[in-house]
């Protein structure tokens, strides 16, 4: 079976402005998304995430390179019959009701005519919209509209889901439900390509991540392999004044001043030196711990 998603040297250059100045939005991207996983696609704004998604969906044509969906070139209609897509901030005609949006998309996805209504209702229920099936989109909040978008993405029972910021506009309960839904879909054998800024979400559910920076991929692998293997020491101490702050700064300590305490993050090799300095200025140690780099920290290190 072919890979759900494979790109080979995928490059996109836009011609910008009146002078048609070339701007490379994506530079030789090579990614492989194995079947049945949740793949996190990360990068700061303007890194090329949306361009990559647009290339996968044939919204724009690559300058060079290629991409395939389950072995089908992205230009083929057969590739799109295997995809469910949730755009960032989905827009639907406001006069329609969620059931009408889903029914329309079910038809376009090629769902059997006799099954359309049943499938639409089931997807709306999965997205947590049981009470809003007949409510016009115009009367739905941003978060509820986002849920309509999610239901729309799964209505065709796709093998590959491409989700652009699926948790955008959702409240904490909604995000939790979204995470559960994505894990359920993964357990059903779906492959999920997830572009998101919520790194804690990505870290908790993704099997593999790729980090993009200025159109180039800077890291790819399991979240564990993307994070730095080295750990650091975290010391919680009392709130500190400016003098103490200046003193500690010389020791290459990352200082996070909070209302009730100060958190010092240091390299394990520097621990004795820092402890000595803390003793000299009479800083108490509330708590001491070792911590591995989080995905967010890895993201900042790689993409900032």
């Amino acid at each position: 079976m072919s890979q759900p998603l494979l790109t080979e040297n995928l490059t996109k250059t836009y011609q910008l402005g009146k002078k048609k100045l070339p701007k490379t939005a994506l530079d030789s991207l090579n990614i492989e998304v194995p079947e049945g996983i949740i793949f996190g696609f990360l990068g700061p704004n303007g890194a090329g995430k949306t361009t990559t998604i647009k290339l996968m969906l044939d919204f724009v044509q690559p300058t060079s390179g290629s991409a395939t969906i389950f072995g089908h070139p992205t230009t083929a209609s057969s590739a799109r019959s295997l995809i469910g897509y949730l755009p960032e901030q989905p827009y639907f005609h406001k006069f329609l009701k969620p059931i009408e949006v889903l029914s329309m998309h079910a038809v376009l996805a090629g769902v059997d005519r006799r099954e359309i209504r049943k499938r639409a209702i089931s997807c709306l229920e999965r997205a947590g919209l049981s009470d809003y099936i007949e409510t016009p989109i115009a009367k739905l909040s941003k978060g509820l509209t986002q849920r309509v978008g999610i239901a729309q993405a799964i209505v065709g029972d796709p093998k590959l889901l491409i989700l652009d910021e699926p948790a955008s506009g959702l409240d904490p309960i909604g995000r939790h439900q979204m995470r559960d839904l994505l894990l359920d879909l993964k357990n059903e054998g779906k492959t999920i390509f997830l572009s998101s800024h919520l790194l804690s979400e990505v870290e908790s559910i993704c099997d593999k991540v790729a980090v993009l920076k200025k159109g180039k991929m800077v890291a790819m692998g399991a979240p564990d392999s993307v994070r730095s293997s080295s750990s650091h020491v975290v010391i919680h101490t009392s709130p500190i004044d400016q003098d103490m702050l200046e003193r500690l700064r010389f020791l290459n300590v990352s200082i996070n001043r909070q209302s009730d305490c100060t958190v010092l993050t240091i390299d394990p090799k520097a621990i004795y030196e820092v402890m000595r300095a803390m003793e000299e200025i009479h800083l108490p140690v509330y708590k001491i711990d070792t911590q591995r780099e989080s995905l967010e920290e890895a993201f900042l290190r790689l993409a900032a």
Partner: protein
Amino acid sequence: MTKIWTIAKMSLLENSRKQVFHVLCLLMLTVIAGSVLLSIFTDGTKLKILKDLCMTCILFGGAVLAIALGSTGIPNDVEQRTLYPIIARPVGRAQYVVGKFLGTLLTVSMGVLVMATVFGVLVYSFQHGFDKFLPLATLFALMEVAVIAALATAISTIATPAVSAVVTFLVYICGTIKIGYFGGLIEQATSGAAKAVYSVVYHALPNLECFNLKTALVHSDKVPIAYLVQVALYGLCYAAFVLFLGSLNFARKEV
């Protein structure tokens, strides 16, 4: 075909909620109703004036509606991003363009049929009988609308709504005066180059006057069936060709 029909249905629902559709329909209906007053003052020829005015309203109103709706449908979907989830489906870009065109045509047809119904009722009340030629004249007005809607839809794949509306309106005006004006230019041209340019323009422009059966309706003239078939085929082919060009362009368009 199911996919095209689904897009057309959605486009119909969207267009029929637009203010421009309601305003133009009401305006044309007011003029059609007002034509009764005008014809009262011209005794003897009042029925002819009524038919002339009402048919002009239907033709012009239908054309303006087709331009207003046809040139905004696709650009609005692109701008509001309602297009994305649709073309992310196994739907060809050509299917999308044809669906949008059909949606526009169905909406304008709804407006034209309402106008034609009011017109028919007025004619009935004046001549105490049904004018059998009226449905045929309306059908050919709808064919003209189809050609204009196809042009507006195709142009909107390359231009902004404002530009495509202006260009389509210009083509509509030129297409209406094609035979008289551009035909005359070809005859009067002295140089070969000018003649060639005028000929190209002449053949590229749609002949919209051929769909206008107003004169035959007003004077109760007979129109040969062969001519009607020929005009219908011409309209169908022209609209199909223009949509083909529009689809071809939209297929390569980056959205």
